[in-house]
């Protein structure tokens, strides 16, 4: 069911892309002409989210340049695992995030490692791998804007998005 909806979303997304982006004409490219700009954007990002609007999945938090699961994070993950086990239709995308400091590119890799750490733990707790997906936004999707340890601590996290 969920998979079917997901497939539909993906298909609609792909069609959306095709209608807004004609195939690239790559003949005779010049070295001084203008690029794009392309138009069109993301459609509605998520149509499955509404169904799970009230689901209680909680974020977990990390130390700087670290992807190890702290005791509090493990506690939250046990809660999230219970939610997943109680809702067999629910799939989640685990999104790893970082604070704004450091290399943007390294932070994408670090966010991925954070998302994977949570995924492995949820699997250990009995959640089927097919219901879990991972993604990294690096430092591109902060929960709190601004600088300083209070903001940074809130941004070094994994979010769990219902699918």
């Amino acid at each position, binding site marked *: 069911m969920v998979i079917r909806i997901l497939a539909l979303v993906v298909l609609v*997304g792909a069609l959306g*892309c095709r209608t807004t*982006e*004609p*195939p*690239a*004409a*790559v003949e005779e*490219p*010049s*070295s*001084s*002409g*203008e*690029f*794009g*700009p*392309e*138009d*069109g*954007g*993301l459609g509605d*990002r998520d149509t499955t989210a509404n169904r799970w609007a009230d689901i209680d999945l909680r974020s977990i938090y990390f130390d700087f*340049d670290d992807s190890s699961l702290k005791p509090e994070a493990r506690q939250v993950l046990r809660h999230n695992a219970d939610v997943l086990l109680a809702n067999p239709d629910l799939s989640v995308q685990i999104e790893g995030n970082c604070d704004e*400091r*450091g*290399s*943007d*590119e*390294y932070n*994408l*890799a*670090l966010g*991925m*490692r954070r*998302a*994977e750490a949570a*995924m492995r733990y949820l699997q250990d707790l009995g959640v089927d791998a097919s219901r879990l997906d*991972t*993604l*990294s*936004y*690096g430092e*591109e*999707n902060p929960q709190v804007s601004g600088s300083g340890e209070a903001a940074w601590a809130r941004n070094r996290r994994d979010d769990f998005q219902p699918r």
Partner: protein
Amino acid sequence: MMRGAFVRLLLAGLLGGAPAAGAQERIQIEVESGSGRGYQVAVQSFLPRRGGFTHSEPFHSALVEGLNFSGALEVVDEAAFLEPRQTASLRGRIDCANWRGIGADGLVQGMLEVRGRELVATYRVWDTVRCRLQGSVTESRRALRERELLARSIADEIVRRFTGKRGVSSTQIAFVSDGDGQGNKEIYLMEADGGNKRAVTGNGSINLFPSWAPDGRSLVYTSFKSGRSDIWKIYRGSIPGHPLLAERAEKFRAVFDARSGRLGLVMSRGGNTDLYSVDASGAGLERLTGSRSIETSPSFSPDGRRMAFVSDRGGAPQVYLKDLGTGEERRLTFRGGYNSSPAWSPTGEWIAYTARTSGGFDLYLIDPDTGFTTPLVVHPRSDEAPSWSPDGRKIAFSSTRRGRQEIYRIDVDGRNLVRMTARFGNSSHPAWSGFLE
């Protein structure tokens, strides 16, 4: 002179605040002018013929700006001219003593005319010290709407005739900015002097890390527009239809190897991020690193034989080198606990990188062979993501020194700091193009 005082002030500003460890090691990096005084060049306005008149003034301004941009040449104030401001003829000799008398080491003369929809410039360059032509009379043409670009590319060629190395005023810088008013990070383009900023992407998603194809005809970049991070390639005059690689994995960044035209690819399979190599069409995937640690930020030596990259295999991000022939890898940076964003200079002599210091992030240069390290930009706020101009004289980078993240450029000897993206949102990840044809 005033100018010298200004440079000292800039340097004081750069080094001021937190006296960085090693700041006293600042060394002078050799540039062609050597003496510190660039070539003084007089430029007579190009003689307009057949419709060239309306283009004459803007062309002249762009030519003068392009010559001054080099830092190696300085255009002589035409108020000092003993001879007409405008070129009379491209035939015959000139009175070299008259030009030397006003301090000019060189003279540029030319004609400007419209042929069809093209602007055609014909010019010659004099060495007034030796009183001989530098190269032959040259004709150069571009579409009328590319008038300024024509002037800048001629300026770059004139720089080459005096210094042996082409100027960079006709190159471009791609960068990331959320200056669209909606907070979306899109890819933008500007001229090397910071002018004419325009969007390359407009997909309302997150777009990062532009990298130029060696021929300047396409860019690759990272985009979340499909919902996941993927590599896209865009040609001039077109828009991309599909991601570069079909591989189901998180692709974080692709970086051109200017020598081979292949791409270094940062990709995560199963959660572990490693470096790969693919050709420019996305085919021929090869693995370059294979450890359990994070590897990112490939930057290739200009001869294509080595790759600098970042790895946290030692516990925290540091810069490493890989010999692409033997496969040997070794750690390059040892100072500080977080070093990233290596950028190999086009001359091969230096790697610029970002170092985390007590206050934020600073830019350093390191000699890849000896490990000798010297600070380039040190400021209490953060300076990051260096990118070299193709002549190896300038570095563009992002800085939060005035609050928002903005793009600056600086000469490699630490002089001439210039902000390039005032009032343009948060701007980051400059990627300086190679020489464009």
